[in-house]
């Protein structure tokens, strides 16, 4: 798909309209905002208390200081919130749309179906938790010795890389919908794997670390930015992290388009 300035403007306009329309549906149930926010806050606070309790008795965990372990937790939170806000809900709804036949409406529009599915829902509910996620991140960094410019640049680059890889993995899960319609629990597995990334990877046996780095590269998502920030990411492993994300994006895109060709619109 060739991208021109005109096309970009058109897609930006479509995205703004989709965001506004979704916001319109959300404000009809304002209580959802409050309850969702409260639930998330309780969850985040529990994790936080858990970490504080552990470090009250243990000076380090698998060789990481309190600030470093908190940085894993805070980075996972930030990435999780950004994923949820941006595209997760849209992809997650695809199986239901396929079952109900609503996906056909996306196909009939003169817009990329991938763009429509991924970005038609901007999650305002999770947006409310973004300031708290940033607050946790700020606190984690405040516990660490001041970082140099290289560490900051590394952190930001691998944070972007993490979002690209997460998008590729989510696109792959969404594309599976065209093969097996019910994929709800596969998304649950993705969420579970995301949540285990709030801990330093060294708590896992070496085989699991290898699996989560090279087979299902979830560790690239959270561990790599944190390790880049604290200077524990070897250059070769960092290059691998960038390469695997690029490869995952290419493969996910192919898998999505193949899946789309297999789609038979059975529910309509």
């Amino acid at each position, binding site marked *: 798909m060739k991208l021109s300035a005109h096309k970009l403007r058109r897609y930006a306009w479509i995205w703004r309209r989709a965001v506004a329309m979704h916001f319109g549906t959300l404000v009809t149930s304002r209580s959802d905002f409050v309850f969702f926010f409260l639930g998330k806050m309780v969850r985040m606070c529990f994790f936080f208390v858990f970490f504080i*309790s552990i470090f009250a008795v243990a000076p380090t*965990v698998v060789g990481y200081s309190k600030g470093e372990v908190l940085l894993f937790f805070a980075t996972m939170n930030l990435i999780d919130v950004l994923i949820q806000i941006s595209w997760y809900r849209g992809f997650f709804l695809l199986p239901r749309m396929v079952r109900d036949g609503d996906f056909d409406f996306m196909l009939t529009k003169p817009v990329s179906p991938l763009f429509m599915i991924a970005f038609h829902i901007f999650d305002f509910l999770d947006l409310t938790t973004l300031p708290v996620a940033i607050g946790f991140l700020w606190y984690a960094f405040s516990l660490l010795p001041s970082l140099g410019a290289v560490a900051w640049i590394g952190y930001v680059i691998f944070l972007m890389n993490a979002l690209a890889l997460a998008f590729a993995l989510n696109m792959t899960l969404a594309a599976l919908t065209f093969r097996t319609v019910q994929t709800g629990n596969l998304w649950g597995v993705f969420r579970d794997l995301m949540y285990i990334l709030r801990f330093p990877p060294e708590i896992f046996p070496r085989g699991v670390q290898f699996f989560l780095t090279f087979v299902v590269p979830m560790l690239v998502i959270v561990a790599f930015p944190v390790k880049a920030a604290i200077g524990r990411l070897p250059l070769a492993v960092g290059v691998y992290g960038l390469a695997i994300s690029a490869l995952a994006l290419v493969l996910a895109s192919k898998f999505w388009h193949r899946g789309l060709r297999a789609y038979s619109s059975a529910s309509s």
Partner: protein
Amino acid sequence: MRLLPLKLGLKIIENSWVRSFVWRSDIFFYRVGDVVSPLVQILIWNAVFATTTAFAGYTKETMISYVLVSSVFIALSRNWASENVGREIKDGLLNQYLVKPVSYVQFVMWNTVGRTMLATLMALVVIVVLGFVYREELYVPDFPHLILSVMIVAVAFVMNILLSIAIGLVAFWITSVEGFSAAYYNVRGLLAGGMFPLNILSPGFLFAMNVLPFSYTGFVPTQVFLGKMTVVESLAALAVVSAWTVALVVIVGVVWRLGIKRYEAVGI
């Protein structure tokens, strides 16, 4: 209110099993989460106990036993009825039950038993395997504590279904219960002691948890199992969870009668 005949109840359970087995691969992926969560907790506690011998009155062995046993108990008592009830009211699907000679609340209870039983059986297989792997660390209770812990979980299972139905019935008054349900799902596992034993926090917090119903689905029966509560204390806990169950039977009945009066079958 007349109780549904047992034969009809069993048929509802059978139907819920048949529906669940339509998506067999999804059931498999759902179970992965049952492995991930306790396994990660065990690994975390292994890392913590590498630097300390005791944590809030727990040794490494009792903490691993806590993780495994509480995972089983929480898996035994969980359900997802609130979301379904809320959606059926919101979308007007409740109508199909109103024209049938079946109590909707009782139908939901049987259906939830069916859905939960399948999930629980599979969760048990997973956790039994983990239990076998960590059999050296697993605490073996005496007979009275074992029976009392199982009795508390059995009552908590019914209590949890009633609680979920009560939350779902709120949809009679608010446009959407999705936020409410999400908050409930987010919080209940944590307050049940699914992430860590609740007694590592302050006594005031623990007292509040003993008053609320959530801890009786995980933390309390696990404490009984581990022999950290006397038989008298365990009987008192059984009385509290039973009182909550009776109270919820009344609450669900009242909320249903009030709600159905204002139900307008919107969505049909």
